[in-house]
């Protein structure tokens, strides 16, 4: 570790990613490294994270992710975290190969904070979303080898005074969603659930409950998505971002929402077992 000083033309500016490239040429973060040519990562099972969802409500956004990671048909981890704060006013969730995904989030967090400290002001939400797109694009060579990482990004836009959601594809394409999105292996079921329950001007509590219900439905249909686990006390991670910033809900509140969803479900089914 040394003091990194650069000549004016060489300066990486406020980008931490650029700084890493300058000080360790060719080394970079693990997911940015060129993969071995012509081989797919067969012969070993890659740990995968699955369902994540985000939806907008009247004064912010809710982001939620289940806790299961799988390696092929087996459960690799029961309490992995897939929803993270990007910085104070944003959240990022990941689906796909867990190793590179978690590393990408770690680098993204440092990138945002680094920019904020060097420049003295934080990036706009749009700027943060574009930064993440660049990271996803840099990851493309590994995605071609099967290590796909697809993040979901949401945050509070202080300029527009509203919550916004951004989705990505493996090529680094960045798309803004108007109201909600879900991705991962159970994403389809989660998205349908949200679609049916979503309306303009949801309250925070309603939005949280809808997110929890979406994950419940996803876990019901998708083997790779973990449902609530009251025995071990493991619940999905649910976070909100509003004008006050990122806040992760405590497990107690998520458990309560689950109980409410289950209760409603029991009544609808009339106690029958289907």
């Amino acid at each position, binding site marked *: 570790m040394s003091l*990194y000083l650069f000549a004016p033309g060489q300066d990486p500016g406020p980008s931490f990613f650029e700084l890493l490239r300058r000080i360790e040429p060719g080394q970079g973060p693990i997911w940015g490294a060129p993969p071995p040519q012509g081989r797919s990562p067969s012969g070993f099972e890659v740990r995968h994270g699955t369902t994540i969802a985000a939806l907008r409500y009247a004064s912010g956004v809710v982001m939620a992710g289940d806790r299961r990671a799988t390696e092929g048909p087996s459960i690799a981890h029961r309490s992995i975290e897939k929803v993270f704060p990007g910085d*104070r006013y944003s959240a990022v969730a990941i689906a796909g190969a867990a190793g590179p995904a978690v590393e990408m989030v*770690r680098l993204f967090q440092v990138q945002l904070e680094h920019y904020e*400290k060097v420049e003295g002001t934080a990036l706009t939400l749009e700027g943060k979303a574009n930064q993440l797109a660049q990271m996803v694009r840099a990851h493309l060579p590994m995605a071609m080898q099967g290590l796909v990482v697809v993040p979901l990004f949401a945050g509070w836009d202080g300029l527009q005074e509203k919550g916004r959601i951004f989705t990505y594809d493996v090529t680094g394409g960045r798309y803004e969603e108007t109201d909600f999105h879900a991705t991962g292996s159970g994403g389809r079921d989660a998205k349908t659930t949200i679609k049916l329950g979503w309306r303009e001007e949801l309250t925070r509590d309603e939005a949280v409950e809808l997110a929890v219900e979406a994950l419940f439905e996803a876990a019901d249909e998708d083997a790779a998505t973990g449902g609530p686990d009251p025995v071990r006390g493991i619940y999905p991670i649910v976070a909100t971002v509003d004008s006050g910033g*990122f806040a992760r809900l405590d497990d107690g509140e998520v458990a309560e929402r689950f109980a409410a969803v289950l209760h409603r479900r029991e009544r609808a089914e009339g106690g029958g077992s289907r």
Partner: protein
Amino acid sequence: MTMPYYVAPEQVMKDRAEYAQKGIARGRALVAVTYDGGILVVAENPSRTLHKISEIYDRVAFAGVGKYNEFDQLRVAGIRHADTKGYAYSRDDVDARSLANLYAQYLGQVFTHEMKPLEVEILVAELGKSEAGNRLYHISYDGTVVDEERWTVLGGDAEVIAGRLETAFAEGWTLAEAVRACVGVLAGPDRELSATDLEVAVLSRTNGTSGGADGRRAFRRIEGGELAALLSGPGAGG
């Protein structure tokens, strides 16, 4: 081929030191003190955007006086060091001591080997888990590091201001008491400093634990209404 004139090394060092001291003495001073909730830094700085005090990492802050472009370059280098170290190891492995040593090394190197020494004096402060863990490293233009106990003064008129601060300092004082005392000490008996002449920031143990933040980042600027309120509180002028 022309031979350079012989100049005694003592003379070279003395000239360089004088040059650097002159540059630093032209700038306004800055004081840093510990208080019951952390570390307070107060600088005389009429600019709202060209900061003298900045955040380096979760519990580490930077302050510089002298030539702005020179200490600002050091500030950015400090952030780069801290962020790469925290990224490679862990957030808890980033500390003020190793950064202070790097700065000292660099300043010493420039002072002895370059044409022009850097006209800066810098402070690296680290907030401890308790008051005993607080660190204040005061680094001079020639790379001399001083590990200060409870307070330090940087910049022009430092000795006079240090004399005033010595008597004003009170162990375990509150933020409001410390801010008012520091402002009084910077202003001296013949002047008044208002909120617009000041740049104030803290490394606070209770920072950001509400409003969604996790309290990891201890650095916070005290500006505008909050600063005015602190300055005009009960017992103002002390």
